[in-house]
């Protein structure tokens, strides 16, 4: 169990009212996909910050922007992303590509989704590590192999993977090698996109152990993006729930799982079966909206069992209901003048 960071809390990253849209144009018809639409969040030093939501809710786009990987058709429409690096404030969106490249891997690192495909299939793992270090840490080049061997030993990975090609390794081992590659330069902030999806249960556990070990060793901060609430329950300190490009709820993990206030969060948690019971589980009706025609008002209202008239027209503001617990729902924060029903 990781203790919450000591006070005073420092934020390593701060996102303010971020809007990132995919704008495409085919035969003069413009299409705007509002993948990230007004998201604000703060990531605290040393924590595991979970980002949850179904596919198509904007999780991966948010990560791309956090990394500063903004290439067309993705464009930033508004808001800011600031990092705190060595007590300096860095506006990642204002940096030049070379400045951003200098920060990547050594300050901010990224564990991509589907790591099956990120390792070069015709290079041995050793060569992939050598290329990586030559490109990003030239001062290590002479001792590359010692550094790599030492790091793999620290992480409990067998040294002989270095002589293997990616296809010689199992999916779980490839994922762990990718994680080792992404973290060898001791980044302060690690962004992991679905690191356990498509892995077997035992291997999933192994990957989670590895991420925890790395975090404990380097006291870095981990942002964990996954739709798997089981992973959040086991690893995250705080969890942000996204839906259709907007924040629905944010709280510390225990509160979020035990007193979820937003109906969407309640669905996410209650629809999951547990290993010790067989009681019937209800799945969320409907499906996430297409983000080029997002519903008016609260974006969850077409699927919400408690939807009221006001939900169809007024966007619920994200309010702090108690310290550290933010919710965007008219049931929890009744709009002025209208009597809202309490959640049953």
């Amino acid at each position: 169990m990781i203790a919450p960071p000591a006070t005073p809390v420092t934020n390593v990253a701060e996102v303010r009212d971020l809007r990132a849209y995919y704008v495409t144009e085919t035969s003069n018809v413009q299409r705007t996909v509002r993948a990230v639409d007004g998201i604000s969040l703060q990531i605290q030093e040393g924590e595991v910050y979970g980002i949850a939501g179904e596919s198509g809710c904007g999780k991966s786009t948010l990560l791309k922007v956090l990394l500063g990987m903004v290439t067309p058709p993705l464009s930033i429409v508004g808001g800011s992303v600031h990092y705190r690096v060595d007590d300096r404030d860095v506006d990642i969106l204002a940096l030049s590509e070379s400045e951003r490249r200098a920060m990547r891997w050594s300050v901010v690192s990224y564990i991509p989704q589907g790591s099956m495909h990120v390792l070069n299939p015709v290079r041995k793992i050793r060569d992939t590590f050598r290329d990586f270090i030559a490109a990003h840490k030239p001062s290590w080049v002479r001792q590359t192999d010692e550094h790599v061997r030492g790091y793999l030993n620290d992480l409990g990975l067998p040294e002989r993977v270095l002589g293997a090609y990616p296809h010689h390794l199992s999916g779980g081992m490839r994922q762990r090698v990718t994680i080792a590659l992404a973290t060898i330069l001791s980044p302060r902030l690690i962004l992991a996109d679905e690191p356990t999806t498509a892995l077997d249960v035992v291997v999933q556990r192994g990957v989670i152990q590895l991420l925890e070990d790395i975090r404990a060793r380097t006291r870095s901060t981990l942002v964990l993006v996954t739709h798997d609430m089981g992973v959040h329950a086991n690893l995250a300190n705080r969890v942000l729930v996204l839906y259709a490009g907007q924040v629905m709820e944010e709280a510390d993990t225990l509160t979020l799982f035990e007193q979820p206030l937003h109906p969407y969060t309640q669905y996410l948690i209650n629809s999951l079966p547990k290993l010790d019971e067989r009681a019937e589980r209800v799945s969320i009706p409907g499906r996430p909206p297409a983000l080029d025609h997002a519903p008016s008002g609260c974006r969850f209202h077409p699927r919400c069992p408690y939807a009221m008239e006001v939900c169809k027209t007024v966007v619920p503001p994200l309010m702090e209901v108690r310290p550290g617990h933010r919710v965007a729902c008219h049931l929890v924060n009744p709009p002025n003048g209208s009597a809202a029903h309490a959640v049953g």
Partner: protein
Amino acid sequence: MPSAETFKALLRVQDLTREFVSRRGLSTRHLVAVDRANLTISADQHEILTIAGESGSGKTTLARMMLGLVEPTSGHMLFKDRDVSHITGGANRKWFRRQVQPVFQDPFATFNPLRRIDSYLYETVGNYGVAPRKTADEPIERALNAVGLSLREVKGRYPSELSGGQLQRVSIARALITDPSLLVADEPVSMLDASLRMSVVNLFRELKARQSVIYITHDLATAYYASDRVAIMLRGWIVELGPVQKVLGEPKHPYTQLLKTSVLEPDPRQKSTERVSLAASDEGSFVRVGCRFADRCPHVMDICRSVEPPDVPVDGRLVKCHLYESQSSTEEAAEAAAPLVASAT
């Protein structure tokens, strides 16, 4: 569904084995993907049987053999008392394929994005001669209704117009058109979001009223939720087989115990701190003598490294492990291997 036929078991799999041989230059490697699997699905009562295990455990090869898509190297498979292990062609094959229908893993890969969804349904009606073209709508509508859709909703639509969950439902509806007695679903929910996942798993629970389902997955939580019995596979072996409450409730095989402790429960209070041991090598354990779990087993004994463990009946299930050997008797073994209703052997 009333049936005039009488048979002892719906499906009986006996010592079913599949070996893959790969040759590289002069060296030949043998990989036994499924090693003497034994399973029976009762004719008297529908059930959902889960086959669970990590990737490379042989669960997909076993499923493909049950579908008649992969031929076994040795062993037998009886479907309604007919030997279907080497079904090659003609009427027999058509009959078998009507009876046992597949549901595949990735609904986005199952359907050609440039073909209308309903064309697959009409094609299945035609292929199996379910109904003449004029009245083809009738069985299709019935199958779609069973999965909570209607022909009006899918007619003329392309795969991109439906969500993953809906596509998987259409894929299941297609399998239901021939009114099969067995559905074999290989990882049907692994490509779906958690919320859609439950709607498909709930659908299998409903479909049990019509036929038995073999559900292949590595997701133990949905397996526990949906199935009646579960077979745990490891490196080609079925290492534990029995009612799901027994096998996943109080697992006996050390591998099943490892699987259970590895599940990440969506409950921050049940955060497990136990460290799991991961497989060091992937290939060696297929050919080693003795138990294939010996390298990772916390209870490993000398015998495990030299003698293959027998199937031992323990507390209502079969366990392939030396730990329980002394407690067995042959009658118990037969009982534990039996399907839900004691089969008339």
